[in-house]
C-alpha cells in the first residue's frame, strides 16, 4: 500500500509541473488580446497606458522569462492577479472554494447514497423489473445534460410549484451570516440563525440533487457490477447459512466487499463532479469556483482561468491519491502489504 501511495506522491510534482507548463503554453496561444479586458478597447492606442498595463500584469518580456516568472510566482502561491476582479486569483479562489465544496460534498453524498441503493436493489433483484428500473434511473442521470436538468428543475420547483427557492445560496433579502468557514450550512449554525440555515439548506437541495444524479450513473454501474460479483461468492452463502437475514447479508457482508473495487472510481467521479459543478453553478448562480471559471473564460481573464485549471488539476491529483489510500485502507489484504 505504502509503495503505491509513495509512487503517486513521487510523480505528483512532475505532473503538477506538467500541468503548469501546459496551462502556461496554452495562455501563449491566446488569440484575444487580454489587454482589452484590462484597459478597455479605447485605450489600446495609448502607448503609455498599454506599457504600464503590460508591466503591471507581467505581459512584457520574452516567453522563457515569463515562464520562469510564472513558475517562480506559482511556487510562492502567487497565481497572478485576475484581470476582471483585480484581486489575486488565489484570494478569489479561496473565497469561492467553500461554496463549491459545499455543493460538491452534498452532491457526492446524494450520488453515492442513491447510487449504492440503486446498485443494491438492481443486484439483489437482477434481471427483474426493479433491476431494469434502477439501472434506467441511474442511466438517465448520466445522460441528461445537467445544465438543462437544472433549468427544468428550477422551472418546475420554483416557478410552477414554488416549493423551493430560486438560484443563489440564500434568499436575496436575507442577511448572510458572518463568514467563518465559508460553508453556508455551518456558518448559519455558528451564527445561531436557524431560519437562515433552513433557507441555505433549501437553496442547496436542487443543485445538489441535479449534480448528484449526474454522477449516480457511474456509481450505480460500478457498484452493481462488483455486487453481482460478490453475491456469487461462497462467503455470502456461508453468511446465509449462518442464519443471517437477507438485508444483513447484503449490507454487512456483500456491500462491505463490493465497495472496495468500486472505490477506484472515486477519482473519476471527482472529474464528473467538476464538470457538472461548472455547469450547475452557472444555472443556479452559485458563487463557487465553477461559475468563476465560466466568467473568467468568457472575459478572457487568463490568469484566472489558468489558476482554476491548476487548482482543478491539483484537486484531481489529490482525489486520485485519496482513492489509492482509501482503496488500500479498505482492504485488509492490502493493509500490511508493502
Amino acid at each position, binding site marked *: 500500500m505504502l509503495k503505491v501511495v509513495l509512487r503517486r506522491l513521487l510523480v505528483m510534482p512532475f505532473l503538477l509541473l506538467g500541468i503548469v507548463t501546459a496551462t502556461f503554453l496554452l495562455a501563449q496561444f491566446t488569440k484575444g488580446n487580454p489587454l482589452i479586458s484590462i484597459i478597455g478597447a479605447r485605450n489600446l492606442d495609448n502607448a503609455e497606458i498599454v506599457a504600464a498595463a503590460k508591466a503591471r500584469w507581467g505581459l512584457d518580456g520574452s516567453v522563457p522569462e515569463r515562464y520562469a516568472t510564472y513558475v517562480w510566482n506559482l511556487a510562492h502561491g502567487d497565481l497572478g492577479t485576475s484581470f476582471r476582479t483585480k484581486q489575486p486569483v488565489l484570494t478569489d479562489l479561496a473565497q469561492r472554494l467553500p461554496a463549491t465544496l459545499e455543493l460538491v460534498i452534498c452532491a457526492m453524498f446524494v450520488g453515492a447514497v442513491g447510487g449504492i441503493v440503486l446498485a443494491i436493489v438492481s443486484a439483489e433483484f437482477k434481471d427483474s423489473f426493479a433491476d431494469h428500473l434502477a439501472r434506467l434511473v441511474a442511466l438517465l442521470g448520466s445522460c441528461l445534460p445537467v445544465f438543462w436538468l437544472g433549468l427544468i428543475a428550477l422551472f418546475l420547483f420554483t416557478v410552477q410549484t414554488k416549493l423551493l427557492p430560486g438560484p443563489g445560496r440564500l434568499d436575496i433579502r436575507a442577511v448572510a451570516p458572518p463568514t467563518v468557514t465559508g460553508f453556508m450550512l455551518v456558518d448559519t449554525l455558528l451564527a445561531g440563525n436557524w431560519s437562515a440555515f433552513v433557507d441555505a439548506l433549501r437553496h442547496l437541495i436542487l443543485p445538489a440533487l441535479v449534480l448528484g444524479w449526474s454522477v449516480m450513473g457511474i456509481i450505480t454501474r460500478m457498484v452493481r457490477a462488483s455486487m453481482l460479483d460478490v453475491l456469487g461468492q461462497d462467503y455470502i*452463502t456461508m453468511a*446465509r*447459512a449462518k*442464519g*443471517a437475514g437477507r438485508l444483513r447479508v447484503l449490507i454487512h457482508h456483500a456491500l462491505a466487499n463490493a465497495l472496495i473495487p468500486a472505490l477506484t472510481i472515486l477519482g473519476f467521479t471527482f472529474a464528473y463532479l467538476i464538470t457538472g459543478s461548472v455547469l450547475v453553478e452557472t444555472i443556479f448562480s452559485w458563487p463557487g469556483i465553477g461559475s468563476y471559471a465560466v466568467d473568467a473564460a468568457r472575459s478572457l481573464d487568463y490568469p484566472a482561468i489558468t489558476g482554476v485549471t491548476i487548482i482543478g488539476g491539483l484537486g484531481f491529483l489529490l482525489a486520485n491519491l485519496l482513492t489509492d489510500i482509501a482503496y488500500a485502507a479498505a482492504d*485488509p489484504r492490502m493493509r500490511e502489504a508493502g
Partner: protein
Amino acid sequence: MSLPLLDIRGLAVTIPTRDGEQAAVSNVDFTIDRGEVVGLVGESGSGKSLSMLAVMGLLPRHLHVSGSIRFDGVEICGAPERQMRSLRGRRIAMVFQDPMTALNPVKTIGAQISEMIRLHNPKLGRAEVKERALALLESVAIPAPERRFDQYPHEFSGGMRQRVVIAIAIANDPELLIADEPTTALDVTIQAQIMEIFARLRAERGMAVVLITHDLGLVAGLADRMSVLYAGRVAERGPVGPVFTAPRHPYTAGLLAAVPSIDDVAERLYAIPGTPPSLGARPPGCAFAPRCDFAVPLCRMSEPALLRFGSAVVACHRAEELSLGDLPRKEA
C-alpha cells in the same frame, strides 16, 4: 423406532434451461438419525450438494424444489424464510468445501465467529460472546486463539481456515451438520486432522453429520451409513460395512475399485470409463447404463426401481444376479 432427525422423501430440484426444466435431482430419499454420520457419495454434478442446499433453503431462487423435507418432524420444504433463518446456523449448520472462499475477506475471524453466536443469542453480552468464540477456536485446535481472534482470513492457512469454518458451524451446537466436501481443498495430512475433529465433535456433542464427498475413504473412516447418488438419483444406499464388502450397484463397485489400497500398490487403479450424463442429456433407462460393464438391453430401456437387497437398497436391474464384491482391481 424414533423419528429420524432429517427425513427427505421424493426430493426433486429442477433447473430452468433453454430447453425447458431439467431435473438435477429427482426422487431422492434420505434419512439421518440423531448422532449418526451418513456419507453422501457421488461424482461432481451428481446432485449431492444441491440436495443439501435444498435442505438449508439456500438454493438460488430460480431453481425449483419439490418433495418433502422433514427436520425433526416438521416440514421445511418451501417453509417461509423467517422459519428457515431460525433453523440455519442454530439447528442445522454447514461446512463449505473451499475454506479459501468461505470466509469473508474483510471481516476478522473473531467477528465472523461472534456473528454466528450473536445471531442466535441476541441477549448475550459482548464479553460472553468473545469468551464462547475463543472456546470454539480452542475446540478446533487453533493455537493462540486470543491472537488469532483479531486476524483476517488471509492470515490463516487453508487448514486453519477450515477449522475456523468448522468452529463457526458448531458455534450453536447444531443437531445436524452438513459438511460439503470439507477436506477436498486440503492436503492429505490436514485432511486427517480435520476428520479427527469431526470424529471428536460427533463423540462429544452427539451431532448428526451428513458427509458429502466423493472420497470413499472418508466415508469408511467416519460414516455409519452411506447413500450413493448418480445423475441426481439414488443408486445405492445402506450401512457402510455391507455396502463396502458387497456392493450391489456397478457404480458403487466402480467407485470402490477406484479407491487406492495399501495391499496392491503396484497395480493400476480402476477408473470408471466415460463421464456422467450432462443435464438434459439423460439417456432413457438406467442413467449409468452407457458406462456400465454389465448393462443388458433392459438397462437401456427402463429405469430400475429402488429395491431392497439385504440391508441395502439398490437401483439396478441386475442387482440380484451380479456378485460385485470381488470386481475391484481387474485389468484396467
